[in-house]
């Protein structure tokens, strides 16, 4: 017997969707194995995860709360990954968004009406994320610096900047010993659905961003150029596409929407800047898988973002009840991403088993 592998042409949407679902399933099986090794009934554990996230109103509300940053960031990452620009720095782009918005909220917020405070904070957050996101694009094109490394280093740097601010110059006067800034003025805080942490404004914004970025990728000239650069850089050069301008804009948008996620966390949930681990629970990294599971289609990240938010929320829930460490969720993420990329093999290759005569 011999296993033969051939490149596959194009198997069609339904087939690809099937492969995606099967890899997801395989990922969940692997997660189950991890539980079994910990002597926890895997079916019960996985059931508990989804019950924790989708099984109650509380769970659903929490899932939507966490899905918002995941979708915003994931949609932006999908854009960058379409251009084969490996932005791993969404975590810090989110933080920069939060920093900029905090400054605007604290300094201008008290003297502005609510709508203007929101608008300026979101604008500032977008600009903060965008500027931070554009640094690796400049570094890559003009100095040949690998974007994976630069975006990661910027993550660490941004985290230290936030820590520096909250224990140093921006430390809140009303916060006694805690490393927080002062709270945002009331008019700069987003209105939430009662008994939840879900801001309707953020939900609308998130869905709009995901759909708009989808339109951008598949219907705009800019999106066409992004896809040409990502799929064949040589052909893009031949076609006269300006790499620097395009990638700079890609990263401005990708970083900018991550910045919006930072504003959301700040203005809807925390109300002040605090330690980076508090502001973002690793959303920038989880969103990488959200983008990948969404097949790098910003619109699909709405679904994949909800799915992963569910895992995060359900993971938190079983963590409490079963006494598992916080890192458990990271194991899920790693395993699911691993199986997703393994699944891609079957999208691009045909495997047949031949019996030799």
């Amino acid at each position, binding site marked *: 017997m011999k296993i033969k592998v051939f490149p596959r*042409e*194009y198997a069609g949407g339904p087939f690809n969707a099937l492969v995606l679902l099967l890899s997801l399933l395989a990922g969940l099986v692997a997660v189950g194995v991890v539980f079994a090794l910990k002597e926890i009934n895997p079916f019960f554990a996985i059931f508990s995860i989804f019950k924790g996230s989708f099984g109650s109103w509380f769970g659903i509300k929490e899932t939507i709360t966490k899905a918002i940053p995941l979708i915003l960031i994931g949609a932006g990452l999908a854009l960058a990954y379409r251009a084969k620009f490996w932005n791993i720095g969404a975590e810090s782009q989110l933080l920069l968004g939060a920093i900029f918005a905090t400054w605007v909220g604290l300094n201008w917020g008290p003297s502005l009406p609510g709508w203007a405070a929101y608008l300026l904070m979101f604008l500032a957050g977008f600009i903060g994320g965008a500027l931070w996101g554009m640094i690796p694009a400049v570094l890559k094109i003009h100095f040949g610096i690998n974007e994976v490394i630069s975006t990661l280093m910027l993550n660490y740097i941004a985290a230290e900047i936030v820590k520096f601010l909250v224990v140093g110059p921006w430390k809140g006067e009303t916060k006694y010993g805690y490393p927080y800034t002062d709270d945002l003025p009331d008019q700069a805080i987003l209105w939430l659905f009662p008994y939840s942490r879900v801001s309707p404004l953020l939900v609308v914004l998130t869905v709009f961003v995901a759909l708009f970025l989808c339109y951008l990728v598949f*219907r*705009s*000239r*800019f*999106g*066409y*150029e992004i*896809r*040409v650069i990502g*799929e*064949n850089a*040589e*052909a893009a*050069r*031949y*076609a*006269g*596409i*300006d790499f620097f301008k395009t990638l700079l804009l890609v990263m401005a948008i990708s970083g900018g929407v991550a910045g919006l996620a930072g504003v959301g966390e700040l203005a809807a949930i925390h109300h002040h800047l605090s330690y980076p681990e508090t502001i973002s629970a690793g959303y920038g990294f989880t969103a990488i898988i959200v983008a990948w599971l969404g097949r790098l289609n910003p619109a699909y990240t709405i679904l994949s973002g909800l799915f992963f938010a569910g895992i995060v929320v359900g993971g938190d829930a079983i963590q409490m009840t079963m006494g598992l460490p916080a890192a458990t969720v990271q194991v899920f993420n790693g395993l699911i991403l691993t199986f997703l990329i393994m699944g891609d093999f079957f999208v691009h290759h045909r495997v047949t088993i031949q019996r030799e005569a």
Partner: protein
Amino acid sequence: MRSIEQLEMRGIHKSFVGVQANRDVNLSIGAGDILGLLGENGAGKTTLMNILYGLYRPDEGEIFVNGEEVVIRNPRDSMRAGIGMIHQHFMLVQKHTVLENVGLGYEKAPFFFPLREVRKRIEAEADRLGLHVDPDKQIWELSAGEQQRVEILKALLHDADLLIMDEPTSVLTPQEADGLFDILRAMSREGHSVILISHKLEEIKAICNRVLVLRKGTVTGEAQIEDVTMADLARMMVGREIADSYPKADLPEGEAVLEVRNLNVQSDQAVPAVQDLNLTVRRNEIFGIAGVSGNGQRELVEAISGLRHVESGAVHLNGEKITNRTARTINDSGLTHVPEERIKFGIVPNLFLYENAVLKKHHRNPFSIRMRMNYPRVKKHAETLVHDFNVDAASIGVPMKNLSGGNIQKMILGREISAEPDLLIAAHPTYGLDVGAAEYIRKQLIERRDTGGSVLLVSEDLEELFQVCDRIAVMYEGRFMGIVPPAATTIEQVGLMMAGCPAGECDED
């Protein structure tokens, strides 16, 4: 001791999807023979040799070494049997030294400090066969001829008795080719045998002692070289008279479309690739550029089309200066370009056919309106291209990579022609295509010329240049050796210029 005294391939059949590449081919070669394997592009020469080297398995047929059947499943089997192959594109590690390249996979060297042993062997071979090459230089520093010698050394150190060489002179200057022939003769005297794949008659005549001619996969002739004339070989190879030219409209000389003055361009290695070049392409004209590849043709084309920096000199299109403008600006002012290495540069394999159909003009109305792509118009355009240029595709919604090479090229050509450019640059547009597709593309180039356009055609195929061009420039080391009308010139004269003789300065005797 030689392990191959006599090698035979008997009754070889091989077919690929729908194409019979080899049909009942028999080949035999003895120690010391230099066998020419002659045929046009697509005659099945390379397929036959890939079977011998273990890259393909034959559908039918056997291989015998010294009268005993051998089974060759992969290159390693073939190497064990004493067969070495030198591919048209060298299999060398550019950043490594000659020693390291030759030492790669050399089993007899010790584990530590293996290169000392390799150096000894190289020096020995150099003395014996005149295979001189500096063992400490890195490959990228070497000329094509020297790189080829490294490949020969690799084969010899693996104890290859039979050396297969695929179009070995296509990358060489004539002087280097002579050097190669000396080496091959020396090897033959030592009892090595050589199979030389070629479509060049002179070369076969000059170096081989026997010749086997293939046409459309079957053997059409086999002879001792002294028993046949060049004309005999040509007949066996082509089987028809070569068409003189394609019918062209008789048109008056048009105004200059492209003017290049004192152009200097550098190669990727930052050495001068195009030097003080002047040329003019007129309306209703196909201007051909002949030459062995690597003499600056690529850099010239890239500089004109805005993909490479012009060091000095000027390029004018329709009287307007376009020197060092961006590729997009130049394209928008009426110059389109069919690139060489079409899959690498010309298309985006994973995007749909219709998306590829507007590459490079996607930013223009009506394909995009302001920032929005107008996909209904893009698709309509793709439908038109597929229809007008006979592109064979399941639909315009398939990924471009699903198309065959010929259809990809038709699509690219159609895309570039349909923009009705003032100047169409076509670099090696028929390279590697089957005869039907190649003919179709030549006709389209002439059509463009006849309907008010002008064409700059870069090709290594002299026959093609003679058939379609109004004037042919011959490029050698970044300069033109002459610009000649094909009607009043022979292929031999162009050949001399390709070897670096300015027009009229060398006599052909």
